[in-house]
């Protein structure tokens, strides 16, 4: 045994002691964690292999002599032995060529990174998770989801309390306010509330079946109060004469004819979210980027506000 081997063994031992101390000294030690254990095993292997390899080659440099048949060519007096290509190197070389062809033809084109591709995968994964987790929720959970969507998307205009912030947007705690009803009667409406074009005429197209005349200013005021009051109080007979033929006696609307003006419902809210609307307060943009379940949830939340 010469000095080189001895030095190698001492150095290995020192490195292992150092590894032991640094692991033991770190917070919690190995902590039974598989990753920590693997890291330490790797460190130990690295120390041993490095020392072994270095010692081997230093030893070879000390003792090796050149041998073999010299090639004829000489480049500035630097010659070359005619040794066969080492088998390990040859295998690596051929392997690299094969891998290179695969990577050029299939590897890169098929697996290349694309930011949009990652986005599409993310979106698909998210939608699948959403579908699995929320597709069938109902009741309180649906209302809770609706509230969270409302707080994210709707509160900037309708306010935290859904009161419309002093008339800056519709007050959603009631189905309709008197000024809205009045505006619609006077100006008509075409807001795709049924999902299709179904315009309501303005006051020049609204006859009171009881009197046989066009609706009057006084009647407009009375019936606006009646609708805004939740279909209660004075004005029931005007409503029956003017509005009920389309909106129904109870104001809950008729399919393909007129929307529900007594209460909020899913179809109504979904159509407003899909198409936006324009009225006495101003315009509401469409929020069709919400998914179907989210729209249903918002409907449930808004319906719950006025149901209390």
């Amino acid at each position, binding site marked *: 045994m010469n000095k080189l081997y001895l030095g190698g063994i001492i150095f290995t031992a020192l490195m292992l002691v150092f590894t032991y101390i640094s692991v033991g000294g770190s917070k919690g030690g190995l902590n039974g964690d598989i990753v920590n254990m693997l890291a330490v095993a790797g460190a130990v292997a690295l120390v041993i292999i490095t020392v072994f390899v270095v010692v081997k080659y230093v030893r070879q440099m000390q003792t090796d002599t050149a041998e073999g048949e010299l090639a004829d060519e000489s480049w500035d007096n630097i010659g070359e032995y005619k040794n066969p290509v080492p088998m390990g190197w040859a295998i690596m070389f051929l392997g690299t060529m094969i891998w290179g062809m695969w990577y050029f033809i299939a590897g890169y084109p098929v697996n290349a990174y694309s*930011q949009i591709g990652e986005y599409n995968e993310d979106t698909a994964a998210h939608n699948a998770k959403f579908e699995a987790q929320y597709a069938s929720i109902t009741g309180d959970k649906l209302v809770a989801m609706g509230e969270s969507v409302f707080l*994210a*998307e709707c509160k900037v205009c309708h306010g935290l309390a859904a009161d419309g912030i002093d008339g800056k947007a519709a007050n959603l705690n009631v189905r309709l306010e008197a000024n809205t009803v009045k505006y619609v009667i006077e100006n008509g409406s075409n807001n795709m509330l049924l999902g299709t074009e179904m315009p309501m005429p303005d006051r020049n197209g609204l006859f009171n079946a009881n009197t046989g005349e066009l609706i009057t200013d006084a009647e407009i005021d009375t019936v606006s109060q009646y609708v805004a009051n939740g279909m209660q109080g004075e004005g029931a007979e005007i409503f029956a004469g003017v509005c009920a033929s389309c909106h129904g006696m109870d104001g809950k609307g008729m399919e393909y004819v007129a929307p529900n003006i007594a209460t909020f419902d899913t179809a109504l809210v979904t159509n407003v979210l899909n198409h936006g609307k324009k009225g006495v307060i101003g315009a509401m943009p469409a929020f069709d*980027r919400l998914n179907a379940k989210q729209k249903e949830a918002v409907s449930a939340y808004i319906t719950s506000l006025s149901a209390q």
Partner: protein
Amino acid sequence: MFHWLEKNPFFFAVGVFVVIAFAGLIEIVPNFAQASRPVIGTAPYSTLELAGRHVYIKNSCNACHSQLIRPFKSETDRYGHYSLSGEYAYDRPFLWGSKRTGPDLHRVGNYRTTDWHENHMKDPAAVVPGSIMPAYKWMFTNKADINTAYAEQLTVAQYFSVPYNKPVPMKDGSTKTVKMGASVAEANALALEQAKEIAADMKDQDVKDAVAAGEIPEIVALIAYMNSLK
């Protein structure tokens, strides 16, 4: 020749540069040219919108608001489709911004309205509780600079071939023609025409009166610009 190059390292380096630069050119330039072409649905700014853009720049809105939606689910949920490079074809300079103290505005026209902007610019905290955005009350009295906007229109139409007075394709298959006046007076008239449409949806009586009297407050131009961001 290769032997000669090997003996002359300087010219060898020049040769290497030429080869790599040429490869780079044919790889990068066609893609770049394709991506920077306006996408379908992107129209040039009208005179009033351009004046609003100048108001936006003048008040450094881009210091707090970005105009670039990244392709992450969390962003597209909030702001809409991620931004495409061709959508900035008529932005000179682009206003991507580098920090979001406030929200992104690249598609704000899709989900905010004229009257909302009016309320918000007057008193942000009244609309968005806890907002730290300052009020921009002077925009309701300052007058928008239509002449400069028209000068920019003339310049970009002449030097960058921005298609004013020409039909550009829209997403629904129709075409849209953004008009540019033939004279300063005509440009002002066109801007006022659009300003009247905006003012009709606004509540502030002073602004309405100003527009009716033929003047255009900055807020009207800014809202026109905001509404054009889709």
